[in-house]
């Protein structure tokens, strides 16, 4: 009897060991098929930093540049627009954020007139239209989300503020965009 028992334990061990090796093998075989779905080397390289010349953008206007396939808005705000954005800082916003936190941590008074946001609606990714909507910031025509002059969501189905990409001021008239961020 004892000898049969030993035999079974050895066999159980072999089953488990084979199963474990097999599972690792299957997982390693699946991984390349999953990984190929992600951004390829070309898409990752296209994320190199880009400089924007601010001297070309007059007050009250904005430019849209395409970076990593997505639009980025660079808007030169008027004093009135900045004032409107700051006045609303304390109001019950769906995604509370102060205007000063959105224009760049180290921005001085002169730099804080620039608002730089990724131009994709945080609802389902359409491109909002500038200078429109109830708050004169941006309005998304797809499902009716209203953003203010700080790019914050104020009304409509979008859950988050327009995303501020990673950027820094290289000089008084030049800003370097170094990375995108996700809304979440």
């Amino acid at each position, binding site marked *: 009897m004892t000898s049969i028992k030993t035999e079974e334990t050895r066999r159980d061990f072999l089953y488990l060991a084979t199963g474990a090796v097999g599972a690792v093998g299957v997982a390693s075989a699946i991984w390349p098929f999953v990984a190929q*779905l*992600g951004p390829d080397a070309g898409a990752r390289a296209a994320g190199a930093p880009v400089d924007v010349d601010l001297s070309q953008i007059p007050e009250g206007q904005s430019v849209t540049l395409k970076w990593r396939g997505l639009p980025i808005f660079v808007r030169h705000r008027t004093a009135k627009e900045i004032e409107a954005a700051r006045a609303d800082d304390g109001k019950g916003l769906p995604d509370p954020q102060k205007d000063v936190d959105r224009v760049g941590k180290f921005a001085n008074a002169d730099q804080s007139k620039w608002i730089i946001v990724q131009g994709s609606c945080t609802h389902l*990714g359409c491109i909002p239209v500038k200078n429109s909507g109830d708050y004169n910031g941006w309005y998304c025509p797809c499902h009716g989300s209203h953003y203010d002059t700080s790019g914050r969501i104020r009304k409509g189905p*979008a859950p988050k503020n327009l995303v501020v990409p990673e950027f820094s001021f290289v000089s008084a008239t030049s800003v370097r965009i170094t990375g995108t961020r996700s809304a979440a």
Partner: protein
Amino acid sequence: MQGHSTYVPKSSAAKWLEARLPIIGLMHSSFVSYPTPKNLNYFWTFGGILMVMLVAQIVTGIVLAMHYTPHVDFAFNSVEHIMRDVNYGWLLRYLHTNGASMFFIAVYLHIFRGLYYGSYKAPREVLWILGVVILLLMMATAFMGYVLPWGQMSLWGAVVITNFFSAFPFGETLVTWLWGGYSVDNPTLNRFFSLHYLLPFMIFGVVILHVWALHVVGQNNPTGVEVKNLTKDTVPFTPYATVKDAFAMVCFFIVFAWFVFYHPNYLGHADNYIPADALKTPAHIVPEWYFLPFYGILRSVPDKLGGVLLMGGAIVILAFLPWLDTSKIRSGSYRPTFRIFFWIFVMVCVLLGWAGSQDTSRAVLTFGQTTILDIVGFGQILTLYYFAYFLIILPLLGLFERPDALPASIADSILSGSHAMPMGAAASPERKV
């Protein structure tokens, strides 16, 4: 169903094959001697029509793929090349695009048929769930196919629909993986082309399971009463059902041809003849008509995750229908109260489609200058009824409703000429006076 395997091979070649692979016998018992209820009406012809539409889409699709280029720089022009340069390319493409619409017309009629006559009830639950799986696969296929011409609606439809997944936890990562980059771009178009080619064959596989499940439990019929006597209640599939299906198919193809030859772009959207522009969203973005009711649900919910969940739930809830409907009576023909709620449900689905196609700021009901009800509010009422129908009305109705008396059998219902003579039924077939 028993008693329909009557095939006896006659020629020696057939005997030889049948002894090794009984495929002729299988085809014979499935499509020739298979007993079908005598009282099937024309709403039962859409299964066959759908099968033919699937084959038609695969055939036109394979041919179109020979002329199409899945690359963001060439896709739009290659579709125009098909339209202008390829011999009969315009016809093949119009057959394929309108074919998708006709496919959905047929599948929606097929589904409403099932909803009215209680075709989802025991023992047909698995058959019904396989149907829901086919519907989901069809939707994925149609969506990815619409992306391929790489027009404005293709691109922005793809952006909006892939962004549904960003509503979930880890959604941003998931969406990046769906796209193969940081935006909807060439890798996205390429994989959608690959999957658009694959999915119809998966649909074909599930259709085989659907037909298999159907032939195990047998067809439902307008009375909802099960077949009790094969000789009295049924007729062989060939020639009765085959001829009836063929006639319906001819009528259906006349409508199909009318669209293809006279109004080939009526069901599409003009904006899709503008090449895709990643920096400009069309002012009025709407999906193809067959997605409008679900789009109407999405837009009526002011919350992102909530909207996506309800829209998905509107389809998934169908799979639970066999257990949500508590009534023992299958056919709506014997459920007077159910009929009222059913036809309201049909109207709600149509109105949801209308709401999905309108601008969100549009007023539906006004009093003087004030808007009492806008599209969003209207959509919310309709969405509420859509879900209440499945979650409240059907579960309760089975408990409180007083159904009409059922006929003793299918044969009885025909011979007595009962009130439940279904819509569109051939005048009492096989009647002996």
